[in-house]
C-alpha cells in the first residue's frame, strides 16, 4: 500500500512560516491534487514529500515507512517538474533510464523499462533525440516517462502543465488521468489551476497561507466549501460574494440585509449567527437567474458586458449600490453564467434572482454557516 502520511508537518524558512501543522493522509492509488494561490505553500509541501526540502518538524510516512530523514532517491518517489528538468545532454532514452542507471540496474532491465514507458507515452520515435529537439508536449511526456521507468510508489507532479498552451494542456490532462487509471499508482499533483484540480483529482487539498483549508472530493468541495476562501477559489467563473449585515437572527434562521435594500432570509443555518454580524452571502454564477423569476430573492440590474462562449454566456451586470466583492471582473458587477445564448446588449435592464437554497452564508470569520447542500452525481 503506497499511502503517503503527513503528520504535523511544519516548515520554517528564514523567518517565514511556510507550512503550518499539515496533517494529511493520501491513500494508495489516490490522485490527490493540491491547489491554492501562489505562495500558499503547495509546491513547498510537494518538495518536502519529495525530500528536496527538509521539514522543520513533523513526520512523513510513505508506504507506512518513516522517510522524514531519507534522501529523495530512497523514498520510492518520482517527480515531474514544472520546467520538466530534463538532462539536456542526454538522449530521451538516457533521460528516462537515468534513475535506474543510478540504482545500478542491469542494462537489459533499463532498456525494457524505457521501452515500456516510451510505448505508454508514444515516445518510441523520439528515444534517440535530445530534449531540445522536442516540442513542449513531448518534453512533458519524457519527464513523465522518466518518472514511470522508476516504477515509483508515488508520483509527484509540480505544476506540470503550466508551461503548455491551452489545447495541449487539455490533452495532457486527459492523458494524465488515463495514465493514473492505467498505472493505479498514488499521485500527488500540485497546481494553481482549479480546472485541473476539479477535473483530475480524486481528492482535492485546498491550501492557503501554508495551511490546509479543506480536503475532499472535487464536487464535495465545490458544493460544500467549508469557508469563503474555498468557495471563492473553486469554480470558474468565481462565486459572487455580497457583504451584508444580520438584521434578525433566531436559532437556525437569519435575515441578512445587503446594500441596495436586498434582504436574504436563511432558514436552516448549520451554525448560528447573531444580529449585527457582518456576514457574506455567496451565490455561484450558474445559480443566478435572469428574468421570469417566480420565487426567491430578486433585484434589478443592468448589463455591463456579455461574453459569448458559444455553449454558454457569461453576463456581467451592475446592480447599483448592491455590489460584489472579490468577483471575477473586479468591478463589483455580478457574474451570471447561462447555459444558453442570451440576446442582451450592454446597458439593457434585467432582473436577477436566486433561490436561497442555492446561496451560501459565510460568518464574519469566513466560515460557511449555511446548511450543507446535497451533492448529487456521486
Amino acid at each position, binding site marked *: 500500500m503506497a499511502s503517503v502520511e503527513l503528520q504535523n508537518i511544519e516548515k520554517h524558512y528564514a523567518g517565514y512560516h511556510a507550512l503550518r501543522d499539515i496533517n494529511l493522509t493520501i491513500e494508495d492509488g489516490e490522485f490527490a491534487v493540491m491547489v491554492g494561490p501562489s505562495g500558499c505553500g503547495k509546491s513547498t509541501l510537494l*518538495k518536502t514529500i*519529495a*525530500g*528536496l526540502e527538509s521539514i522543520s518538524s513533523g513526520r512523513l510516512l510513505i508506504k507506512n515507512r518513516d522517510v522524514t530523514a531519507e*534522501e*529523495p*532517491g*530512497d523514498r520510492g*518517489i*518520482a*517527480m515531474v*517538474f*514544472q*520546467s520538466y*528538468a*530534463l*538532462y*539536456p*545532454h542526454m538522449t530521451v532514452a538516457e533521460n528516462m533510464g*537515468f*534513475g535506474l542507471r*543510478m*540504482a545500478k540496474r542491469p542494462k537489459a532491465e533499463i532498456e525494457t523499462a524505457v521501452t515500456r514507458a516510451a510505448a505508454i507515452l508514444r515516445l518510441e520515435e523520439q528515444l534517440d533525440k535530445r530534449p*531540445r529537439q522536442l516540442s513542449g508536449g513531448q518534453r512533458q511526456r519524457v519527464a513523465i516517462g*522518466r518518472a514511470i521507468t*522508476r516504477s515509483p510508489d508515488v508520483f509527484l507532479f509540480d505544476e506540470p502543465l503550466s508551461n503548455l498552451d491551452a489545447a495541449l494542456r487539455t490533452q495532457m490532462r486527459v492523458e494524465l488521468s488515463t495514465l493514473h487509471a492505467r498505472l493505479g499508482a498514488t499521485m500527488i499533483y500540485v497546481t494553481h489551476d482549479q480546472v485541473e484540480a476539479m477535473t483530475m483529482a480524486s481528492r482535492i487539498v485546498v491550501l492557503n497561507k501554508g495551511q490546509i483549508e479543506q480536503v475532499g472530493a472535487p464536487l464535495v468541495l465545490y458544493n460544500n466549501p467549508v469557508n469563503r476562501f474555498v468557495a471563492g477559489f473553486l469554480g470558474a467563473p468565481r462565486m459572487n460574494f455580497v457583504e451584508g449585515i444580520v438584521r434578525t437572527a433566531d436559532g437556525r434562521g437569519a435575515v441578512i440585509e445587503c446594500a441596495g435594500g436586498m434582504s436574504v432570509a436563511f432558514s436552516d443555518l448549520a451554525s448560528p449567527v447573531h444580529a449585527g454580524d457582518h456576514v457574506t452571502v455567496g451565490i455561484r454564477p450558474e445559480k443566478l437567474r435572469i428574468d421570469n423569476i417566480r420565487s426567491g430573492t430578486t433585484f434589478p440590474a443592468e448589463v455591463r458586458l456579455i461574453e459569448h462562449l458559444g455553449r454558454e454566456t457569461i453576463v456581467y451586470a451592475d446592480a447599483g449600490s448592491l455590489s460584489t466583492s472579490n468577483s471575477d471582473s473586479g468591478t463589483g458587477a455580478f457574474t451570471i453564467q447561462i447555459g444558453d445564448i442570451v440576446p442582451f446588449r450592454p446597458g439593457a435592464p434585467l432582473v436577477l434572482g436566486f433561490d436561497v437554497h442555492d446561496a451560501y452564508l459565510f460568518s464574519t470569520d469566513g466560515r460557511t454557516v449555511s446548511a450543507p447542500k446535497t451533492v448529487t452525481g456521486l
Partner: protein
Amino acid sequence: MSRLWRRHSNWLAPTLFILPGIVLFGVVIIFASLQTIWVSFHEWDGVGAMVWVGLDNYRQLIDDPQFFVSLKNNVIWLVMFMAAPPLGLALALMLNQPIAGMRIVKSLFFIPLVLASVTVGVVFTWVYDPSFGLLALIFTAFGATASALLSDENFVTVAVVIAALWPQIAFCLVLFLAGLNNLNEELIGAGRVDGARGFAMLWNVILPQLREVSFIALAVTVIGALRSFDMVAVMTSGGPFGSSTVLAYQMYEQSIFSYRFGYGAAIATVLFVIMAGFIVWYLHTLLKVEEGNA
C-alpha cells in the same frame, strides 16, 4: 538628413558604434601582427635600416638550441597549467557550501587575482629563497636542506609554473563559482529524485551544466600558458643559462637586449602560428557547443 538617417539607421547605428573598436583592432592587432611578420623576414637592430634576409631568421631558429629550450618550456607550462581548471573546480565545489563565514574564505582565495603577477613572482621568489624562504624553513624543520630551485636548471621552470598556477587556479575558481551559482535547481532536484549523489551527481548533472564555463577556463588557461612571460621575467630572467625561457621571453630578450628585432619577430611569428592553431580549434568547438545548446 533625418530622413536619410531613419531609412538607414538600422545598419548605420551599429556600424558607427562598432567603428572605433574595428579601427583600434585593426591598428593594434591586425596591422601590428602583419608588421611583425614583415619584420621577421629582415635583419634589423631596431634603429637602422632593415635588411631583407628572407627566411634566414627561421633557418637560424631551427638551428638554435635556445629556441627548443623555450619551446620545451612552453610545453611544460601548457601541461602543468592544465591542472588549473580541475583544481579551480575542486576548490569552487568546496567553497560553494552554504556555511557561515564562507564569504570571507572565498575572498581569501581571490587574493592572488588582485595581486599583480609581478608581485606573485616576487613573493614566490622569496618562498623559494634557499636561505630565508618558506620552502627552506619547511625543509629545515624536517632536517633537510632546500635546494635553490630557481638556480637549478632541472627544476626552475617547474618552480616558476607553480608560482604562476596560483593566480591561474584562483581565476578558474572564480569562473567555476560563477557557474555554480547559475546551476538549474530543478535539474539538481531531478537528479536527487533519480538517486544521483556524490560523484554521480557531479558527473551526470552538475558538470554538464558547467560545460561552457569549463570551456572558457580551459581556453584562458591555454592562452595563459602560451603567452607566459612576466613570471619568467621577474623570477629568473630566463636563467639559469636560459634554461627557463619561454618563447615570449626569448622574443623579448632577443629584440630588446640583443637588438635582433628580425629574429625576435620570427619567434613571435612562430608563437602566433601556435596560438592561431589553438584559437581556430577553440572557435570551431565553441560554435559546435553553442549550436548544441540552441
